């Protein structure tokens, strides 16, 4: 049997670069069949993005270039994926489990009358076909799902799949932008993130340092930033820290924020409420620094320090810097 096609929606940043989740998406796709990328890029950006997708394992790329910045929500990407679906008869479709990815998956599933697997943390194949793996209730349970028949549309949790595909020299097929087939909202403005941070993305970082309400203020939250920079880590926050304005919402880790699974998670001044744990308890190693010996974060920490983060962390940074020299 020929290898099955697996469509992968690969979002492109305004700069023309692929978003960070691309490597994991293509890595997951390669575990199932032949990765076929779908790209919607700005004018003149497409070929470079397609080559980048090839380096991450896309054997084929369906490319649409927009002349202008997109003016309708979801529709350009949805129509591109739908056209690639028509052309390739895929066995599975993978999209990132982010806002745009979910919108595409949702509409495509209804349109093609397909089964969906939401927020998968892994994929594999059994005798019957494609299987999606899920981590439920903040990873207290693991489940597997599959379609009764037909293709499976999967939203893949960012950073969850470590497998990487072998680089390929992609065949690039150009698609014309299609007219939206569903009613769509219009995009009236776009404000590029200004603080293009030099830190690794929270979702895919190997190390994450998160700060909580215990850091006391926006200035105090700087302690988490310093440690993140000393370790080359991504930065996260608890909801209480976000609500208090210490950090932007995009950094919220937990049930209603981002789920992360880094090699090392360091929680500073975070009590470890279940809703926070839900987003970080699959980290390989968890370190917690908290003044309160009874804080629930210690129940899941591999290394817990009962102490003041403002005393422990500077010494930690100093020691690590000294060792590095």
């Amino acid at each position, binding site marked *: 049997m020929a290898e099955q096609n697996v469509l992968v929606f690969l979002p492109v940043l305004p700069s023309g670069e692929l978003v960070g989740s691309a490597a994991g998406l293509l890595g997951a796709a390669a575990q199932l069949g032949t990765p076929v990328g779908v790209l919607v890029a700005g004018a003149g950006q497409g070929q470079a993005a397609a080559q980048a997708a090839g380096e991450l394992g896309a054997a084929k790329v369906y490319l649409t270039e927009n002349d202008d910045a997109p003016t309708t929500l979801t529709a350009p990407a949805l129509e591109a994926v739908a056209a690639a679906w028509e052309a390739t008869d895929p066995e599975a479709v993978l999209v990132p489990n982010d806002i745009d990815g979910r919108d595409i998956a949702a509409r495509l*599933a209804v349109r093609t*009358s397909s089964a969906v697997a939401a927020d998968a943390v892994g994929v594999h194949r059994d005798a019957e076909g494609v299987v999606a793996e899920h981590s439920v209730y903040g990873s207290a349970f*693991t489940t597997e799902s599959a379609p009764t028949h037909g293709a499976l549309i999967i939203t893949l949790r960012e950073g969850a799949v470590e497998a990487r595909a072998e680089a390929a020299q992609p065949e690039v097929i150009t698609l014309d932008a299609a007219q939206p087939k569903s009613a769509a909202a219009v995009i009236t403005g776009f404000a590029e993130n200004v603080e293009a941070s030099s830190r690794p993305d929270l979702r895919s970082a190997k190390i994450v340092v998160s700060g909580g309400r215990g850091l006391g203020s926006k200035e105090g939250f700087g302690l988490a930033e310093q440690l993140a920079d000393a370790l080359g880590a991504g930065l996260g926050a608890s909801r209480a820290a976000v609500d208090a304005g210490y950090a932007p919402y995009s950094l919220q880790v937990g049930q209603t924020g981002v789920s992360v699974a880094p090699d090392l998670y360091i929680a500073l001044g975070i009590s470890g409420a279940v809703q926070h744990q839900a987003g970080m308890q699959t980290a390989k*190693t968890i370190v917690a620094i908290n003044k309160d010996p009874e804080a629930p974060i210690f129940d899941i920490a591999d290394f817990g*320090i009962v102490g003041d983060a403002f005393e422990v962390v500077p010494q930690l940074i100093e020691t690590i810097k000294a060792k590095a020299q």
Partner: protein
Amino acid sequence: MKIVVLVKEVPDSYGERKLNLTTGLADREASEKVLDEITGRAVEAAVSYAESADEVEIALLSMGPESAESTLRKTLAMGGDSAHHVVDEALLGADLTLTAQVLAAAVQKIGFDLVIAGDASSDGAGGLLPAMVAEQLGVAHATSLDSLQISAEAVTGERAGYGGTVSVQAQLPAVVSVTERLPDPRFPGFKGIMQAKKKPLETYSLADLGVDASADVPRSIMLSVSQTPARTAGEKITDEGDAGKRLAEYLIEKKVV
């Protein structure tokens, strides 16, 4: 204008949430059922708009087991004019495709200009339903809005996009979903609770909605479910002035830094 709010009942995340290891379904006995916090915010968005505009009618819709009725009553106490409960044995373990089909059919039956939902359920269902319902209804979606303005003709708001913030506008009819950035839901007062008792609450079966749960269309099925071993506490030390050094040694020894 008629607004339908999609209201969901979920296991309380403060309690122990369990899946039945045989059926893979949520274990109803294991935990309290509560109004999902995010759908509380969706109701709040509708109610606060109704307070500022004329002739806004709010219908609250939920698909769920019998228990969802009391959650709907509690939600009615926050505001809204009527509640609508889809309950049917055949919906036990319904997948997303079926749920979207059922909710869309109920929304059609109720009639709507705007549907407001939460962006994602806290029981981990994945944030797909609002856009699925929009596609079923053949209307525009504007999902995961961090801000929302409603007018008689359109909705506008902002949401996170790749590398920045996107401003969007959808002409009505439309489906929107909102994030935690929207205001907290209000606490229903005594007056609200008393009034809620008199508000209509209608129930629907699948037959009422003309949906066939056993139709031969692709469904997502659960193949297996297992409990992840609980994480256990490791080493715990109290800082005596050297904890930063000791942590550095631990991290270096574990080769994570």
